[in-house]
């Protein structure tokens, strides 16, 4: 689908013009994003650069300005201009299709024509606005100054005022009126539905007055002056021709009207029969039908449109008609409607052609019925200005849209018709301004105010609750530390099978066994891990084990040195590479450490360790589960040396599966795990006073946290069940 940059209508792929408004589509047209200014392909719905919606909000691009000024629906209708001016002046003047104000674009074929005439800077053949043209024809014999003549008229050889008398065109208008009445007869106005009247199907008798097409044809035949021939088919194509006129032979009429300079007789026509009065000259009394109502606003916006010439007509007119003259794609039903064939029976034409003839009912014709397919296309009623919407648009109460009304429209401005297609088009057209308005309001706001989080006021009576919780927890921790033994049973150390397994591994080491200890934690958890590590090291040293100390973190060797291991053990230092370093260590111990913590060269032969298989036990003290996982995955899967871990309590649930799967031979978790290890190694040894106080504080602290959680939940549910929101 190709979305029209002007009205947002979805058109079929490959469409050259919008079937709704006639806007030129496709090709190399660009759509400029209204928000960031980036140029996007015309097919884009959203901006490539900023994501803004383009289809409804798109602004005309550069190439779009070269579109032909002809657009709108292919209805044989009057233009969107002033009705009085149209009636006064456009009978013999080709009516300029309603183009946007200030629009000076010309079709490509006109540009080429202008170029062929030698001046590419001025529009050639572009008919001026009807009223302008009428004003430029002050009267017979008046000498229009050269500079006041539009260049395009000068180049076309348009004779001075008086040479082309307005009355010259009146006979042609009469001819057209007669022809159109013959073939384009129409039902009386009262028999037509309102909306069909708004479509601008000209009532009988007004075809000659209102339709600019015959005048355009006449003008096409008359205006070309000496030495400059404006292709007649171009005017034929530009003007909103009705079927009768399209079928009418154009060349004979062109031959009948000679250039003004060569036909002085035309200039001698009575001044009273000006083109503006030419159609009324059909006579007021001969009007068979009352004046049609003005076009509906939605149709006036569409404006007139050119009809495509058939291939046969194009062939007849020769190869000079450029493709740019081709009108926009017009639905077949509209072409049919434009021709009047769908509405007006042919036999009605002669009946209505002559004033005073009986109405269709009088001649036995049935009232024309609106086909169902046409009924579903009936547009909805546009809401009047000031008319309130059926429902109040909601106001956003929070978020960046706070205070914006109508961000999500409940009801579009146009009450959609019965058909979903019409409803969708109406909704798209009305959502667009809503979006634009919303975006404008949001962008107008200051960023700080829009992103500032809303502060929820805390009731005064609840402001002290956090402090109460802090004080309760602090008291629960401090009391056992200041006065140990106050908590009955608080120093009971929970047993842990994993700690017992760890102790078993240590106790089963042979004298002089080599044990590799890796300090894989940082100082932030040293308070938790230092004590259990120290306990294990003490037991290992008591067993006479040879300790090899290393670390996979840069801060680990410092922690080991603080325990005095730099003097009592071989402190290998930092092993870089984390997981890769461990994989290398498991593959080959040789070369993994070039210098120890003190900078001395590591003598592997003196150590008696060529690989990790020569080590009796590997212990990792880790504060992250990754470190344990690296040891298990990279080392444990390659060597048969048992691995034990001393970990922070925070990661114990993540590490314990490795112990359950026997990938870890033992596991000590935090302070409590250290105490359990201590109890497993020396069941009968009394706890130190400091350890006893710490375990009491830990127990009482846990109890305080549980109490706080229970109280908090009770308060929450009590408030919710009995206190309401207050």
């Amino acid at each position, binding site marked *: 689908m190709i979305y029209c940059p002007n009205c947002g209508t979805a058109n079929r792929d490959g469409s050259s013009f919008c079937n709704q408004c006639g806007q030129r589509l496709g090709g190399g047209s660009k759509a400029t994003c209204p928000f960031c200014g980036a140029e996007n392909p015309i097919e884009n719905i959203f901006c490539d650069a900023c994501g803004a919606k383009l289809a409804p909000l798109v602004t005309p691009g550069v190439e779009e300005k070269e579109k032909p000024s002809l657009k709108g629906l292919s209805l044989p209708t009057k233009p969107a201009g002033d009705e009085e001016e149209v009636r006064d002046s456009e009978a013999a003047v080709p009516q300029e299709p309603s183009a946007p104000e200030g629009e000076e674009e010309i079709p490509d074929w006109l540009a080429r024509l202008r170029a062929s005439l030698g001046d590419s800077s001025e529009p050639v053949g572009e008919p001026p606005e009807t009223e302008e043209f009428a004003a430029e024809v002050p009267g017979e014999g008046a000498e229009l100054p050269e500079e006041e003549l539009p260049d395009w008229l000068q180049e076309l050889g348009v004779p001075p005022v008086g040479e082309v008398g307005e009355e010259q065109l009146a006979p042609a208008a009469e001819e057209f009126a007669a022809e159109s009445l013959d073939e384009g007869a129409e039902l009386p106005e009262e028999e037509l539905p309102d909306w069909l009247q708004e479509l601008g199907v000209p009532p009988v008798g007004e075809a000659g007055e209102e339709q600019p097409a015959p005048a355009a044809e006449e003008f096409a035949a008359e205006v070309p002056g000496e030495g400059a021939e404006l292709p007649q088919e171009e005017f034929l194509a530009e003007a909103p021709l009705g079927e009768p006129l399209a079928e009418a032979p154009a060349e004979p009429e062109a031959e009948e009207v000679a250039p003004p300079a060569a036909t002085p007789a035309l200039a001698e026509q009575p001044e009273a029969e000006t083109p503006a009065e030419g159609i009324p000259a059909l006579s007021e009394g001969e009007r068979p039908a009352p004046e049609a109502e003005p076009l509906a606003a939605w149709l006036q916006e569409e404006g007139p449109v050119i009809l495509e010439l058939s291939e046969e007509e194009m062939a007849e007119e020769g190869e000079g008609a450029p493709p740019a003259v081709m009108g926009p794609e017009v639905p077949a039903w509209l072409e049919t409607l434009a021709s009047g064939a769908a509405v007006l029976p042919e036999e009605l034409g002669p009946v209505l052609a002559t004033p005073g003839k009986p109405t269709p009912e009088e001649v036995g014709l049935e009232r024309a019925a609106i086909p169902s397919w046409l009924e579903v296309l009936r547009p909805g009623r546009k809401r009047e200005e000031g008319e309130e919407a059926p429902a109040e648009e909601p106001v956003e109460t929070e978020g960046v849209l706070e205070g914006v009304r109508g961000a999500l429209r409940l009801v579009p401005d146009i009450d959609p018709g019965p058909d979903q297609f019409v409803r969708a088009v109406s909704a798209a057209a009305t959502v667009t301004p809503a979006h634009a308005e919303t975006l404008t309001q949001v962008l107008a706001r200051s960023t700080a105010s829009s992103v500032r989080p809303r502060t929820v006021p805390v009731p005064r009576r609840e402001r002290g609750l956090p402090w109460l919780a802090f004080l309760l927890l602090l008291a629960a921790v401090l009391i056992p*530390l200041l006065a140990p033994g106050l908590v009955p049973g608080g120093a009971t150390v929970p047993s842990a099978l994993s700690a017992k397994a760890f102790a078993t591994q240590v106790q089963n080491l042979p004298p002089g066994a080599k044990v590799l200890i890796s300090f894989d934690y940082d100082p932030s958890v040293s*308070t*938790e891990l230092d004590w259990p590590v120290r306990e294990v090291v003490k037991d290992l040293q008591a067993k006479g084990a040879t300790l090899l100390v290393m670390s996979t973190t840069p*801060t680990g*060797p410092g922690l080991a040195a603080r325990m005095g291991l730099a003097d009592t053990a071989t402190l290998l230092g*930092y092993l870089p590479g984390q997981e890769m370093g461990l994989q290398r260590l498991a593959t080959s111990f040789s070369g993994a450490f070039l210098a120890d913590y003190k900078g001395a060269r590591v003598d592997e032969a003196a150590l008696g360790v060529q690989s990790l298989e020569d080590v009796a036990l590997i212990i990792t003290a880790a504060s992250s589960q990754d470190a344990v996982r690296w040891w*298990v*995955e990279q080392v444990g899967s390659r060597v048969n040396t048992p691995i034990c871990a001393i970990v922070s309590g925070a990661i114990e649930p993540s590490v314990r599966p490795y112990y359950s799967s026997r990938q870890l031979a033992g596991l000590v978790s935090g302070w409590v795990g250290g105490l359990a290890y201590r109890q497993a190694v020396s069941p009968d040894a009394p706890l130190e006073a400091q350890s006893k106080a710490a375990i009491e504080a*830990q127990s009482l*602290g846990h109890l305080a946290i549980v109490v706080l959680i229970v109280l908090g939940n009770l308060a929450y549910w009590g408030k919710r069940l009995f206190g309401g929101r207050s």
Partner: protein
Amino acid sequence: MSDVSNLIGIWVSALLTVMVLSYLLGDNPLYRLAEHLFVGTAVGYAVLVAYYSLLRPRLILPLLQAPLENWTLVVPLLLALLLLARLNHSWRGAGMAPLAFLLGVGVALALGGALFGSLLPQVEGTMLSVNPADGGWGVAVGNLVLVIGTVSALAYFYFTGQGDTGWGRLRAGFLKAWRGLGKWFIMVTFGAIFASTVMARLSLLIGRLQFLITEIPKTLR
């Protein structure tokens, strides 16, 4: 001298401990100062350790003492220098090569290790006997809960299985029940992780308070 340095160390650490605990009053300059000191000291220490443990013995000294024998060390040196190019916005692209090398090797290593070090052993670890004759009723029930929890937790992350046919609906209902059960096991696991974290942090608090209570009075004697 060592007593003096030890004394200063104890007081500085006590002061920093109090500064960090001042966060209970809200974010304040004292807490920020302690935080920045901690981070800065840790980074400075790590840089020195990396230099003396890695760069100096493994790169600089070999290149200076025997450059022809160790010319291959130029390759990691260039890669390391290219990593520094990421600091400059216009040269950021040059730093992609060593980064890609590191990521590629790391991912390959992790993949192999995860397969043979975690996945297969963990799957094997869930193949447990639920026969009470093997280890008693307690062990059997424990193993059964472990197997059910593992399978249901895995089913929670199985997002397909919808179907319109009779078999499809049956399969979807079966998976839905397993997913519901797995959700509860996952919630219990998260609760255990939270409790362990609280316990670990409480241990840290106790350790610092114990330090303040026991070490500071020692320095005043």
